[in-house]
């Protein structure tokens, strides 16, 4: 029976959709199979409470690759990114630290805390810019395999080697530090203001079961910094309509290029014939055939659930089993009757249009991690909060608001496991902590949605609820993601590819894995 499609993409998350778009754009017949009734995966907008739209899981856009926005004409397909211009860190002593996008305003505020830090901030920015330039070529390329002698790998390695040599000693030394240090140690070299170090170090631990003092977290800082560097595209911000509109725009592009998208079409397993992936079997038994299959699911789900260990070499299976997920964060989404009133800055000001970060110090974050290390959720979690209705009023009825609280740590492997009661207890810890800074919070809550890593796994299939489809830690990046020698979207099964965040360069609504996977596939079938 001839294949109806050139490619089947399993999973209509943003990476699956990006991959499908690029394949369809190249003239291939593509079918996306999405288990849920709507595409988007973790980039999803939903009216959880009538009239209130939540970005249920991922909630900001920071790393979405500019070339994808360009190539897929996402602006034409409805993507509109609104700026998030500040970060407010309320402090236990009633003061606050604000970071503004305006240089003068930011310097003035930092100088209030430390004149030295106000000055160091600019130099730090220049260095991080240089470091981003140093690392950026790796994000846009398929990682060469250092263990391979294939010409393509050798050329890639040579190119990288030349690139690193071209950095010069100063930048190379700085990069080496960034690759080996903890976020806390790295920031200690630059700043003295606790709230600044706490808030900046948070980007080094987001989504990962690691503390700001864990080695390797400095690099993750940089990974997140890069979203801010490609500033011309203003890709750092809030998608109008919530993060579901990112998926919607990509899906619209995919359809415009001719891809078919089927929702409520859960794949049970990858169809293997003669050692080749030749299609997918849906729940209920329907078989769909294609020349090749691309999985947007995470590596464990792809290889151990959809494929099955019996089709794979033993050591590959072992490596997949060792690939770490350990989801560490949860979400609390609130429908609010009125704005929260922060005691450090009462009233509705510009500070509510940006991010609000509960990260008063590195110690605070490290203590929050301590609890998670031993299997408990943080009593006082780190939080990254946005009030989307302040940026896009259509997210809530007039005068009402939605609040998105990313809260960490909420370990997947909770002592005794996650139950309804533990979920609500975690929700209470989040609200109680935030209410210390915004005392009216509890009285304005109309509806509360608490999401644990277990819920994330259950609802959208991210293993252990890891938001990056696998920890974004140094030992799981670049040519090691997800498995050494298999970091190039291909798998040990011919005809089966991966395109999710579990592959290089990782997560963060970046879209890069989807694009790079598509480019690899197009090369293979050319």
């Amino acid at each position: 029976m001839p294949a109806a499609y050139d490619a089947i993409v399993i999973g209509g998350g943003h990476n699956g959709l990006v991959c499908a778009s690029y394949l369809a754009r190249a003239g291939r017949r593509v079918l996306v199979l999405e288990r849920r009734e709507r595409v988007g995966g973790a980039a999803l907008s939903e009216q959880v409470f009538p009239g209130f739209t939540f970005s249920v899981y991922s909630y900001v856009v920071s790393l979405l690759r500019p070339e994808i926005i360009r190539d897929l004409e996402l602006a034409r397909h409805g993507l509109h990114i609104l700026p998030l211009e500040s970060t407010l860190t309320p402090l236990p002593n009633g003061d606050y630290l604000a970071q503004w996008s305006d240089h003068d305003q930011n310097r003035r505020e930092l100088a209030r805390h430390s004149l030295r830090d106000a000055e160091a901030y600019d130099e730090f920015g220049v260095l991080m810019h240089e470091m981003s330039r140093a690392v950026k070529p790796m994000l846009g390329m398929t990682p060469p395999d250092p263990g391979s002698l294939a010409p393509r790998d050798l050329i890639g390695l040579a190119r990288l080697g030349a690139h690193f040599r071209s950095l010069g000693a100063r930048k190379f030394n700085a990069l080496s530090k960034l690759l080996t240090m903890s976020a806390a140690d790295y920031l200690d070299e630059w700043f003295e203001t606790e709230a600044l170090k706490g808030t900046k170090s948070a980007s080094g631990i987001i989504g990962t079961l690691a503390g700001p003092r864990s080695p390797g977290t400095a690099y993750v800082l940089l990974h997140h910094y890069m979203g801010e560097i490609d500033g011309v595209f203003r890709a750092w911000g809030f998608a109008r309509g919530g993060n579901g509109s990112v998926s919607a725009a990509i899906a619209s592009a995919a359809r415009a290029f001719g891809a078919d998208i089927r929702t409520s079409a859960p794949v049970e397993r990858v169809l293997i014939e003669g050692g080749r992936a030749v299609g997918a079997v849906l729940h209920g038994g329907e078989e769909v055939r294609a020349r090749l299959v691309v999985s947007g699911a995470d590596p464990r789900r792809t290889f151990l659930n959809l494929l099955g260990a019996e089709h794979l070499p033993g050591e590959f299976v072992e490596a997949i089993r060792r690939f770490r997920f350990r989801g560490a964060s949860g979400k609390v989404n609130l429908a609010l009757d009125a704005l929260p009133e922060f005691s450090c800055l009462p009233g509705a000001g510009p500070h509510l249009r940006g991010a609000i970060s509960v990260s008063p110090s590195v110690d605070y974050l490290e203590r929050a991690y301590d609890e998670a290390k031993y299997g408990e959720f943080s009593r006082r979690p780190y939080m990254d909060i946005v009030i989307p209705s302040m940026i896009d009023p259509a997210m809530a009825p007039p005068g009402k608001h939605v609040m998105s609280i990313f809260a960490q740590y909420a370990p997947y492997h909770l002592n005794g496991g996650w139950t309804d009661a533990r979920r609500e207890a975690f929700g209470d810890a989040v609200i109680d902590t935030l209410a210390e800074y915004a005392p009216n919070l509890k009285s304005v809550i109309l509806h509360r949605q608490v999401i644990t890593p277990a819920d994330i796994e259950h609802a959208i299939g991210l293993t252990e609820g890891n938001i990056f489809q696998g920890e974004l830690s140094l030992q799981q990046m670049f040519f090691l993601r997800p498995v050494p020698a298999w970091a190039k979207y291909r798998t040990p099964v011919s005809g089966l590819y991966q395109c999710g965040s579990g592959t290089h360069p990782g997560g963060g609504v970046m879209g890069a894995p989807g694009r790079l996977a598509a480019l690899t596939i197009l090369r293979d079938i050319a």
Partner: protein
Amino acid sequence: MLGALKTTPFHARTAPLCVSHAWRRWAGYVVASSYELSHEREYHAIRSAAALFDISPLYKYLVSGRDAAQLLDRVMTRDVAHAQVGQVLYTPWCDAAGKVLDDGTVVRLGEDVFRMTAADPNLRWLEDNGAGLDAEIEDVSERTAALALQGPAARMILQQLADSDLSALGFFRLVPARLRDIPVTISRTGYTGDLGYEIWLDAAHAVALWDTLVETGTSYGIMPAGMLALDLARIEAGLMLIDVDYVSARRALIGAQTSSPFELDLRWTVNLEKPNFVGKRALEEEAARGPAWQFTGVEIEWNALERLYTDVGLAPRLPVAAWRASVPLYSGGEQVGYATSGGWSPLLKKYIALAHLGNRWAAPGTVLEMEVTVEHRRQRAAAKVVKKPFFNPERKRA
């Protein structure tokens, strides 16, 4: 407080005067671009009477202690150690690669007390270089107000108010004084290349001093003046401006954006005889091989400009205010440099610019071409390399 921008200690006076509502930012403060609807009269006041500038946004540091001189001598390229009390030094300072970080003045207020001005914040740089030295560094930017009174009538106005004889105050010297009982220090310095003074005082007395100066100065034609007028005057005086004519090595993203003091025509400020200072080794090497670039004056030739306009049926159009942009300079079709600021000098009746030129093309008298846009089309007009400053009146130093 969410106030985004700062106002200077003179804001209560400058705000109502600023009928143009043309404000601009300077180091996080708002200052007037021009007070009147056009900056023209303000500019002419600099050259014919006296212009009063609010220069409070400058960063100011008080450096004191047994090793204060040693610290500043280590940071600056000039010989601070041997400065006399009351002497003001204009100086750049560099990073270890000998690239300019900033430029400003250092004045020796006492044997062990200095005040330094800077365009950018430099507290961290001073502190880091002062490790192990007995020197205290205090950022006095906010509590020190500053005015510049510039122009031929400046001395007469100040003398009316001062408790001491100012005629003895030499160029780049400073003296403590009282102006109608307000304690100040007065330096014979400025950014206009004219006879002029800068007055430093406690911010608490700022408004009182402003009122006193304006009251006494009115009969001499004193005029509050904004940044547009100042910009034109400083170009005529051949004085460079950070972020416009050069990029601080601190902010440069690539090596090509940095400049050495030699490349900025500041050879005279680099004292290679000093035992040690930041960037010395790199500067010694550069001194031996010579800089690759020069910072010079350029004069656009009137006839060439007029011809371009005549060709399209127009009279020559001149920039109404100083421009700040990178404008290519060519020699025989090849780009050999770029101008960074320029404008029409109403006093000299010349179209002038400050430019960076490759060594070979930097000798005075060299004829180049500068890009000018005439009726939407890029053209080139002959331009001649000339010595800076364009304007250097005797009264500046006399």
